[in-house]
């Protein structure tokens, strides 16, 4: 394995300022020029809010993809967590703790099953996690009989969790920032993180080097499941009620961000901080399109183009991978 795939220990300027952050600055400048509403405090908060929900999902998918695999079940896990959190009726201290813990545990369970299928049984991760996506969505819809979910006993403390705005910034943004920082440290400074890069770089070599590939791989899926569930709980707290058939599709923008942030589709390369940058780029683009009244279909089209462009760009820069 070459040195290049290993994360460096000393922090350089280029570690923090990667191309995606420059892209972000450019996109923000263009957005501000296109619409004078863009930089209004309310809109900036909206951009961050939107970015955070998808961003937390994308962080988990980054970890899985650095290990060389995909997790497309995350959108379904988000929906599951939001529905379960609301069904548990988060009221009072214990109630809120349960309403947060149970969805996260189920998310971890879904991740563990994905991880076992991919790393123990050798299943193709894309198709397996798409199968899991349908399994989970079907199960959740069966649980609520396809009905709209409205929490009967939703406590104000639970909704206040995400509506609080210390320093004028929505609390979920702090959660996201903390998760990015934590994952950045885990991925670059711990043995566990370096093992993930090793597995993604070359599974064969990692196995021969004595790295517990299956255990670490399963852990990456568990992380992804828990993070997706976190996103779902945040949605539950933000919205307070939801139509389970209308929520979902988070995995695609998240995947687009992961790839745009420079995570290699073949694994071994990628960093959580860059994914965060890419998430903001996509949130800004989506926001501007909404301001300019380009609705969901066009946004979908543009996301597909961004994904294709990003994959093509990185594969060209890495000399075809």
């Amino acid at each position, binding site marked *: 394995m070459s040195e290049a795939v290993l994360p460096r220990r000393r922090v350089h300027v280029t570690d923090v300022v990667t191309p995606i952050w420059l892209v972000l600055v450019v996109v923000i400048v263009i957005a501000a020029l296109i619409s004078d509403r863009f930089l209004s405090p309310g809109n900036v908060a909206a951009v961050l809010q939107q970015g955070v929900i998808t961003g937390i999902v994308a962080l988990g998918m980054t970890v899985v993809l650095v290990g060389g695999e*995909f997790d497309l079940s995350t959108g379904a896990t988000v929906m599951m967590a939001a529905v379960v959190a609301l069904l548990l009726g988060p009221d009072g201290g214990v109630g809120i703790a349960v309403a947060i813990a149970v969805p996260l545990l189920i998310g971890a369970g879904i991740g563990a099953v994905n991880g076992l*299928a*991919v790393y123990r*049984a*050798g*299943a*193709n991760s*894309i*198709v*397996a996690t*798409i*199968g*899991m*996506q*349908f*399994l*989970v*969505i*079907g*199960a959740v*819809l*069966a649980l609520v*009989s*396809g009905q709209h979910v409205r929490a009967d006993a939703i406590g104000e403390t639970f909704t206040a969790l995400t509506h609080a705005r210390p320093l004028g910034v929505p609390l979920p943004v702090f959660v996201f920032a903390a998760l990015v920082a934590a994952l950045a440290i885990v991925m670059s400074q711990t043995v566990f993180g370096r093992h993930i890069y090793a597995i993604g770089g070359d599974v064969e070599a990692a196995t021969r080097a004595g790295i517990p590939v299956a255990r670490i791989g399963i852990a990456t899926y568990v992380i992804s499941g828990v993070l997706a569930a976190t996103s779902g709980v945040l949605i539950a707290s933000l919205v307070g009620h939801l139509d389970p058939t209308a929520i979902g599709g988070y995995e*695609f923008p998240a*995947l687009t961000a992961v*790839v745009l942030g420079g995570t290699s*589709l*073949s694994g071994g390369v990628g960093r959580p901080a860059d994914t965060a940058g890419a998430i903001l780029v996509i949130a800004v683009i989506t926001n501007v399109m909404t301001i300019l009244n380009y609705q*969901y*279909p*066009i*946004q*979908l*089209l*543009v*996301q*597909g*183009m961004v*994904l*294709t462009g990003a*994959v*093509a760009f990185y*594969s*060209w820069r890495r000399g*075809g*991978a």
Partner: protein
Amino acid sequence: MNALASPIFIRLFVKPPLVPLLIVATFVNGFWSVGNLRTLAEAVSTDGIVVVGMTIVMIAGGFDLSVGAVMAMGGVAAVVLLPYGIVVSAVGAAVLGGVSGTLSGLLVTRLRINPFIATLAMMVMVRGAVLAYTDTRPVVSLDDTFLALGGGYPVPYAFMALIAVIALAYLLLNTRPWGRHVYAVGADERAAAMSGLRVQLLKTQCYVISGSLSGIAGLLLAARLGTGSPIIGESTPLTAAAAALIGGASLRGGEGSVAGAFVGLLFIGCLVNVMNILGVPSYYQRMTIGGLLFALVVTDGMLMRLRPR
């Protein structure tokens, strides 16, 4: 003992257990009625045409997640082009599907993008384009010829089309050099390239076939429903992949057969049909198909580990 190990026996009783399922279905009221069998034939025919394309792509070592979105595009295009005549409409649906397949093929072969990701991106782009074009509303047609195309009694025309497509694909794969080449590319791309096969062209052709067939399937579905809906086909790639996997295709290429995929599709079709008769809500069906695909992919992975290439 020999009979129990024969491929045909396995194909009908074990993987998938189609005959046992049919026997169980006998106890479900109305399964064997002409009306229900016709419903079943209708349900499997459009998906079946897609499955043929998916199987060919999988034999060549690829995958096509865009089939459902392309199907929606084909249906919408067919209805929109109807005023110019049914022939233009049908050709339009097939050609648009073929164009999308060409793009997928180019992304996979020229830009060397992983086929799952390339066709996932195509899926999203095609879906976005169709939703944008129709403004997310279905387009309706009341053209008599078109609606007649969606009928046919007792055997639906769409089912006849499916049989024709299967027969053609079977001949193409098993009697023509082209078919051998596709298997060769899927089994070992480098070896195929070194023996002088035009790997990139062959793979692109497979995606074009898959795209065109999806477009035609979309047309037939639109004819049956009388509408081209921009949102149909969400679970089509799953059903198609599951059928192809049951039929012996693998996610690493070089294996699979159209006949096997057809049996796989019949199995899934009967399963869904029985659930419909029993009034099982659609979300349980979604669960079943998701779970089935998950189990199939796990089996696929374990089989590959047992006999590595």
